[in-house]
Structure formats: C-alpha cells, structure tokens
C-alpha cells in the first residue's frame, strides 16, 4: 500500500464486514513523541481467531481465499518504522475489536499518510447506516466528529468529515 490511509481504509472494511454499527477511528500526530498513532475500534461480531493468527498473511476467514493481507501489511508498515500493531478488545461492544497501530513519525521508511480526509469521506458516504466516531489530533488542532450527530444527509456528512479532518491535518508542522 502506498499510503497509510489505504491501510486504514482496509481495516475499516474489515469492521464493516463484521457488521459493526459503530466504528471509531482515531488518528494522532504526536510530534513531541515523534509518533503517529492510529486506533480503529468497532462493535462488530469480533475476531474468530486468536490475534496472532489475525496478522498471519496466510490466514483468512474469507471463503475462497488463501491469504489475509490487510492486518499483516499494516503491521509490516508499522514495524519498519520502529512501531507495531496490537489487537485487543474494544469497549464499543461485547466482542468488539480494537486495532492500535503506532509508527515512527519522522522515520525514513514511514509511508505517507495520504488522503485521509478523502478516504474517510468516501467510507462515510457509502455506509450511511454506520455511526462513525472520528477523532484527529494534530498538535494543538483537534477534530471530533460523530456522523450520527451530523444529520441524515450522508453526502453532506461526508463533505463535513472531509473538511474537518483536512483542516485538523493542515496544522501539522511535519510532512505527513
């Protein structure tokens, strides 16, 4: 994957496939600690396997497939920057999943964040039945959006998400 936002999109697709009705996405640019953190949580049907199997590229729960690359690719992208990926339980639901990823912000091998605002807008637009709780922290700038509070018009909700996330990320003092 050429952008971190594509890894995030992939994990969001996993959460949607787990029939989640609430999905929380948090992206934090911590320049002081030189870290980029991503946390994705859902209240879906949960992992059918142990966390270590979930990041095995040759393991998948999808019928007709022999590989499950999403989590393993994100883990590799994190580890090559001195970070990592952990899978745990989310408080959003009884068997919800929480995936936390940490990357070295200024590490030379870190992939660019890419078009996170456009990515989240696309996801919000095509899944209006899901309540997305989005938080982006970048220095002193912070944006928090809960799509269920933005009204029934999903297209305008997507536009609002794109604008707010874009504005928060615009505060970064380092290249993202």
């Amino acid at each position: 994957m050429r952008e971190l936002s594509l890894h995030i999109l992939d994990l969001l697709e996993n959460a949607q496939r787990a029939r989640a009705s609430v999905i929380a996405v948090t992206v934090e640019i911590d320049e002081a600690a030189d870290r980029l953190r991503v946390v994705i949580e859902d209240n879906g049907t949960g992992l059918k396997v142990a966390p270590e199997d979930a990041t095995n590229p040759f393991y998948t729960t999808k019928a007709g497939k022999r590989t499950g690359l999403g989590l393993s690719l994100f883990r590799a992208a994190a580890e090559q920057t001195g970070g990592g990926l952990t899978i745990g339980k989310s408080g959003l639901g009884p068997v919800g999943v929480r995936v936390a990823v940490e990357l070295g912000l200024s590490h030379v091998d870190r992939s660019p964040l890419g078009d996170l605002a456009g990515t989240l807008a696309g996801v919000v637009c095509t899944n209006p039945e899901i309540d997305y709780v989005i938080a982006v922290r970048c220095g002193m700038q912070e944006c928090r959006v809960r799509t269920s509070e933005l009204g029934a018009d999903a297209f305008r909700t997507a536009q609002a998400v794109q604008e707010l996330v874009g504005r928060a990320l615009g505060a970064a003092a380092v290249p993202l």
Partner: protein
Amino acid sequence: MTTRKITSLADLADVQADARKAIDLRSGTKDLRITVHMGTCGIAAGARDVLTALMAELGRAGTTNVSLQQTGCAGLCDQEPMLTLTDPGGRSFRYGRLTKHKVGEIVRDHVLRGQPVNEYLIKA
C-alpha cells in the same frame, strides 16, 4: 457545512430538493446500484480513487437514481479496481481494471444513457 437562510417557501423547496438529491445517491432503493469492491486487493489497486471519482462524477451529473455502495473482494483480484453496476432489471455489469477516466465514461454512457461500455466489462 454551509447553512442557507430560508426566507420563503421557494427557498425551503430548494433546500428540500438539494437534500433529496444528496440522499438519493446513497439510498438503496434507486434504479441503479453501483458497488465498488474495496477488499485489500481492490484498495491496493486504486479502489479508493475509483470511489472518489464516482462520487465526483455522480455529483457533477446531478443524477438522482443511483445508490453508491462498497463491498469486499469479489474473488477477481487481477481485475481490480472494479465495480459492479446493477440496473433496474437486476442485471449486473462488472467493470474491471478501472481508472478515473474509465469511471467518467461509465457514468456518462452507462449511468446517464443506459449504454454499457463493453470495452471495460470483465469478460466471463
């Protein structure tokens, strides 16, 4: 989000029409359904850019009879990025190896004129 001052019934009707147009794009009860395949393979091949282009093209066209959705891998990874267009008769048309340019043609010819773009269809 922008707000608009409503001072007359005509203003209210305009707001209602705009909202209906925006909602139509995503409700599942419309004549045409476009599903973008967003599995890992699709995303790596450019599915997000296809989705972004579709949203822009459909918004520009002002069409009100299309619902836009996303789903996972369809098992044809070498054809990604791909989309499935389902018409009012329930017929499915699967387009593969898409680009923004191809998306523009599909919206113009198939969505707006009802003419499938055979050149981009995945051959069985």
